[in-house]
């Protein structure tokens, strides 16, 4: 059976060139970067090269602004909680959006439990917040604004530049979670105007278990884990050398090919949108029709539930995901889908299809053939709808 992987926003395969680089640092150059002997120096060199690759990819002015972390989630925790604790004397108010990943939202919830106040900005029907909303939410206690660059569930790209101008004008630290945007659309810390930015290896054909945080020189911040002096005292623990090397190589490759790849995937995306909307009635496009990630397609199909769709597509060899949290045993549908105004009932029928480097035109055709009969079959089984 044909295998079609359409879940690149969940995770990506490691690029063979990346895996090859990594392997060397597992079995051959295995030193601890903190050791001063030859094995250690070799490892150190590799870590610093990767730091440079990350800095270059996102336009950081110095390698000292990049720290590696264990996951994108940990990088988000570092960025948000690290700024919050360090600036506690100045104020206790944080602004974020209803679109954020749980890595951001749950940091904010934790900070609330610790006495901070958090404003979660509502979204428009496309999943965006505006600079005006941010401006209106700022108080003289605001110490941090954290708004994601691109959303994982509905692919919507936020107007980060406009928001950062507001933050700059009010001298408030601004963080963006760029886990989904890096390597897919242009990400430059100066053009975006952000003070902190977080990213993750496994979304860009690098390994799982490695993330990075950019922090602009001079930004008030403190660590959230405690131990040795690694990563310029920003993140203790022996460096994941192979993972770091992999992230460095991956981000270099992703940014090199970005424009060509984005165009290719956007064509697939637009074709799927067009044909699915034409062929399958009672379908809702979620997220912004244009201001969205190139390979990102998301819908809600009325009257049916996400997991059943997933399982049926899986039986056809198509790997895809749903924002329906039924799949994780909770009956709550995705907070993003309800935040853009969908009813829970509709949100339950969500499908997210995220394409990437390994996908071809044939994959798209295979999917477009497979989907309609599945939707039909499930709707025939459903007690809801017009049937």
């Amino acid at each position, binding site marked *: 059976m044909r295998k079609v992987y359409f879940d690149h926003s969940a995770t990506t395969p490691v690029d063979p060139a990346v895996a090859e680089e990594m392997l060397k640092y597992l079995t051959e150059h295995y030193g601890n970067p903190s050791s001063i002997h030859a094995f250690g120096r070799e490892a150190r060199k590799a870590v610093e090269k990767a730091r440079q690759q990350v800095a270059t990819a996102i336009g950081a002015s110095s390698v000292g602004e990049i720290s590696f972390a264990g996951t994108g989630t940990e990088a988000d925790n570092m960025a948000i909680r690290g700024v919050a604790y360090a600036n506690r004397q100045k104020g206790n108010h944080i602004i974020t959006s209803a679109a954020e990943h749980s890595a951001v939202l749950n940091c904010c919830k934790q900070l609330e439990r610790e006495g901070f106040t958090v404003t979660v900005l509502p979204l428009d029907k496309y999943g965006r917040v505006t600079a005006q909303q941010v401006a209106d939410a700022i108080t003289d206690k605001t110490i941090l604004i954290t708004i994601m660059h691109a959303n994982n569930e509905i692919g919507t790209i936020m107007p980060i530049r406009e928001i950062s101008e507001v933050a700059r004008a009010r001298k408030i630290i601004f963080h963006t979670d760029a886990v989904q945007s890096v390597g897919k659309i242009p990400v430059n810390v100066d053009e975006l105007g952000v003070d902190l930015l977080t990213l993750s290896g496994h979304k860009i054909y690098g390994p799982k278990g490695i993330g990075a945080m950019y922090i602009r020189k001079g930004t008030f911040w403190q660590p959230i884990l405690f131990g040795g002096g690694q990563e310029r005292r920003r993140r203790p623990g022996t460096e994941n050398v192979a993972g770091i090397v992999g992230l460095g190589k991956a981000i270099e490759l992703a940014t090199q090919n970005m424009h060509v790849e984005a165009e290719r995937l956007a064509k697939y995306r637009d074709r799927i949108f067009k044909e699915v909307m034409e062929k399958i009635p009672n379908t809702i496009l979620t997220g912004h029709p244009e201001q969205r990630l190139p390979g990102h397609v998301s819908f809600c199909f009325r*009257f*049916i*539930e*996400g*997991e*059943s769709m997933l*399982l049926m597509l899986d*039986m056809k060899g198509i790997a895809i995901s749903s924002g*329906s949290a*039924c*799949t*994780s*045993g*909770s*009956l709550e*549908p995705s907070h993003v889908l309800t935040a853009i105004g969908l*009813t*829970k*009932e509709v949100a*339950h029928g969500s499908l997210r299809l995220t394409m990437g480097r390994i996908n071809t035109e044939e994959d798209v055709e295979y999917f477009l053939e497979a989907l309609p009969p599945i939707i039909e079959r499930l709707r*025939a*089984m*459903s*007690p*809801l709808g017009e049937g």
Partner: protein
Amino acid sequence: MYTEKVMDHFTNPRNVGEIENADGAGQVGNPSCGDIMKITLKVEDNIIKDIKFKTFGCGAAVATSSMVTEMALGKTIDEALQITNKAVAEALEGLPPAKMHCSNLAADALKAAIEDYQKKQNA
């Protein structure tokens, strides 16, 4: 995640549909929770002669619906009322812990359909 039996009932669900002029009909769940199950029955001589389901829900919800109809078909009303959520889950060779509530729905829908039938009989 799911047993082969669950996947079998999910892939080839038995007794899908809705019986017209059913002797009993029951619907449980609510769409905002993501689970709705509707069962319709035909009863002759106190025996369930035909039974069909419609379900809005996850793989487990579909499989438990299918299984409960298969278990109830041909049974007497009293026997059918003995079918428990646990028995449905067991017949499917188990469900993931997070999905046990889906099996609750199946037996509840069957019970609701039978109660509807009994109410109509007594009316």
